[in-house]
């Protein structure tokens, strides 16, 4: 098994994101800070095999978001996203 097999997509992070956000985030659109690509969160690459979940840009594979949770605390790193457009 190589890295390719471990790739999931935004759907796989939907439950986790739902713990943190009031709105459905997989249908939100976000812009990659690195390459400028805009994608729905459901379509981004997700790697859940790390100690936490890593969301990557489907175009350039740079890190969009990292989420680590442990015992009721969450660490959220969103520096790879310029903006999110969330449909309420």
């Amino acid at each position, binding site marked *: 098994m190589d890295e*390719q*097999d471990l790739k999931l997509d935004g759907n796989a992070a939907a439950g986790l994101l739902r713990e943190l956000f009031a709105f459905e985030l997989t249908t939100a659109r976000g812009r990659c800070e690195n390459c400028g690509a805009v994608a729905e969160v459901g379509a981004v690459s997700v790697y859940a095999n790390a100690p936490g979940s890593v969301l990557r840009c489907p175009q350039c594979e740079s890190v969009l978001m990292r989420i680590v949770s442990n015992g009721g605390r969450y660490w959220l790193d969103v520096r790879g996203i310029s903006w999110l457009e969330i449909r309420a």
Partner: protein
Amino acid sequence: MARAAVLGRLSRIAWQLGAVAELVDETARVKTLVLEVPDWAGHRAGQHVDVRLTAEDGYQAQRSYSIASAPEDERLAITVERLDDGEVSPYLAEELVVGDKLELRGPIGGYFVWEVEQGGPLLLVGGGSGVVPLVAMLRHRAASGARVPTRLLYSARSLEDVIYREELGRLAASDDELEVAYALTREQPAGWMGYARRVDEEILREVSYPSGEGLAFVCGPTRFVETVADGLVAIGYAPEQVRTERFGPTGG
């Protein structure tokens, strides 16, 4: 007030208990769990639930399972493939009995969702148990009486591994706008008329709608999804028309 009660009220996505009402053997490795979930909020075809098991020592394991039932169905159903080295699926597929309670939360996801109002034509491509959310879409389509032109391409190892085979046959036979094609990758029965190889560009060209019309939903193991999604784009689908859900290598 107990902390759990406060969290339960604040959390937008609370864990709840469902009772196993019925177990259906689909194939030798696949079982459908029909669940009675009080206060179920309803769902859309394509969404999933998270299932959580807790061991006596407090260890928890959590997995996502696509919802198999249509929104119109009375009870919630998930279809589970047993993965021998899995932590969760062997319990769900082998040890669970009618009446048992199961901890779940959902419905989850909004990206890999199809509702009749979205129209078509609809191309559904499933690999293995990746067919489950696609069948939820077919059931939703049938229950609503919609005449959206739809084609399902279903890749499985053998005919014995095909989930919902009878139902798919029935649906296709009674509906001119629905076609079901199979690709059997490892073993084919004598006289097999369907595809007998892994899904490739040529197959996609044959089953897809002309000039990449409408919407495509692709679900299955990661590699399968990548191949199919790339293939659809190669034959003329715009990336925005293709929605994917990758199951990954384990899921188990």
